[in-house]
């Protein structure tokens, strides 16, 4: 298939957190670097607060398949609450790397590697709040780009400017910059 690099990712977010947008930002950022990418949302009866899945595929060759992602190499969890609501072991294979939005080291084990970033605090600090909800998508997208080596910070920031404009773009860019530097394991 002419592709030496091929990776699949899963985003678990809650409706309103911007999981779908994060996936699209990352696909856009990867494409700037000449990679092929697919950002696939899984829609159901979504509503604010419901758990939403989005998928992301990145490769250096054209990706032909369009099915859902079943064996993610990496998973990004936009709210640590989600870990209390679902059995993560059923959704994300054990050899995957996890990135969790959490203020401190999450109490979860059994994965290849576990990273965390306090995206909620970052979103609040940069005034990224809609209808009372901190919108963590750009912070999480940036942390994902770094942990999963999807794209450079420069590409992520450029992609953010395609999705947001004016003052909102500036806030999202500073949130993304901070998240890139404050992701821990």
């Amino acid at each position, binding site marked *: 298939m002419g592709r030496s690099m091929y990776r699949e990712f899963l985003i678990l977010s809650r409706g309103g957190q911007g999981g779908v947008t994060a996936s699209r930002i990352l696909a856009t950022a990867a494409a700037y670097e000449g990679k092929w990418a*697919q950002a696939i*949302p899984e829609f159901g009866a979504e509503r604010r607060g419901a758990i939403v899945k989005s998928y992301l595929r990145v490769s250096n060759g054209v990706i032909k398949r369009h099915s859902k992602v079943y064996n993610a190499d990496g998973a990004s969890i936009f709210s640590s609450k989600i870990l209390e609501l679902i059995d993560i072991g059923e959704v994300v294979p054990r050899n995957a790397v996890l990135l969790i939005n959490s203020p401190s080291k999450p109490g979860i084990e059994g994965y290849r590697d576990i990273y965390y970033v306090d995206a909620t605090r970052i979103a609040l600090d940069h005034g990224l709040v809609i209808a009372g909800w901190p919108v963590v998508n750009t912070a999480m997208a940036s942390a994902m780009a770094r942990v999963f080596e999807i794209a450079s910070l420069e590409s992520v920031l450029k992609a953010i400017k395609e999705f947001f404009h004016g003052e909102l773009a500036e806030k999202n860019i500073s949130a993304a910059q901070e998240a890139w530097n404050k992701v821990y394991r």
Partner: protein
Amino acid sequence: MRKVLIGNVAIAEAVKLARVEVISAYPITPQTIIVEKLAEMVDSGELNAKYIRVDSEHSALAAVYGASAGGSRVFTATSSHGLLYMYEMLWWIANSRLPVVMSVVTRSLGPPWNIHTDHQDALTIRDAGWIIGFAENVQEVFDMTLQAYKISEDKRVLLPSIIALDGFILSHTAEPLEIPSQSEVDGWLPPREPLPFVMKPGESFAVGNLGPDEVTMELRWYIWRAMERAKKIIEDVDKEYGELTGREYGGLTEKYRVDDADYIVLGMGSWSGDMKEAIDVLRDEGYKVGLLRIRYVRPFPMEDILKYCVPAKAVLVYDRAVSMGYGGILAGEASSILRGKTPLKSVVAGLGGVDMRSEEFVDSIKRFIEEYEMDKDVEWLNTYWLLKGGGEG
């Protein structure tokens, strides 16, 4: 220009580049983003078109019917029950020979209420005289939409076109695509000629008038001939578009590793990409199998099916739609062309958005080949259903 867009937005970009003059809009999931994006483009002045909000899908198609009869280049979009609600107007437009272009973002028909894809909605209209294309990926959604204007407006065709794309899988998935510039498109797609007729204020004109029986039948025969001619036009447009953009797909079908294939798989829509990856895996394992991807179900690619399926040992057809009491729709159509010349197995899968992975295509294609190798006189008289969590197949 390279962009990363979802299928629905890619369609809006194609409509803009085609300089569409009249758009009618009625929302339905998963189509709605197309007409929302077009509304933004009209509002910002990026697209100079008349945007008509209507009270139903029936009215949406009626509005572009009138606008097309008035000589305008038109567009609308729908899905699922919205398409069924348009059914009467679909026939008015085809029988009036108007080059309307519409996107159908495929979605299952209720009940149960389900917003995910299968091909049942688009295939309910296969007898109506519309050209019907199915896209595999976001790039092809864009390319086919733009090409639809050139094909439908060709004076040898003058038939409406539907471009079908799988709901969510293409409509909401973002992928990279190349978008030609406005000047490139302008040089290739001239403004619509006033054909087959143009209604003008102050001039008496009847459309859909009372027709004597013999005339009615003769008009149907003209549509039949136009549909036959459309095969060549679709191929020519694919070639000239290939010269313009570097992307040529193969006309009515795409031939994927079929040249020396003992086994041919037939399929259409977004899961064809998953099938291609399955075929690559099977080729690496030594199986001589290829995919004949149906790009247009109307006009139906009879010649390609004969050319590639008759020399093959056996044919496997994946259908995302079924004719209840008969079988998979594509399988039924292909076997009516093959008339028993090649054994054919019909598999129905993916209804209501049920996901099919490339690995599942590998398994079921292998099973089909093994069945044939074990019994070369095999007759697959049943329609096999790939139910998730058990079932036949």
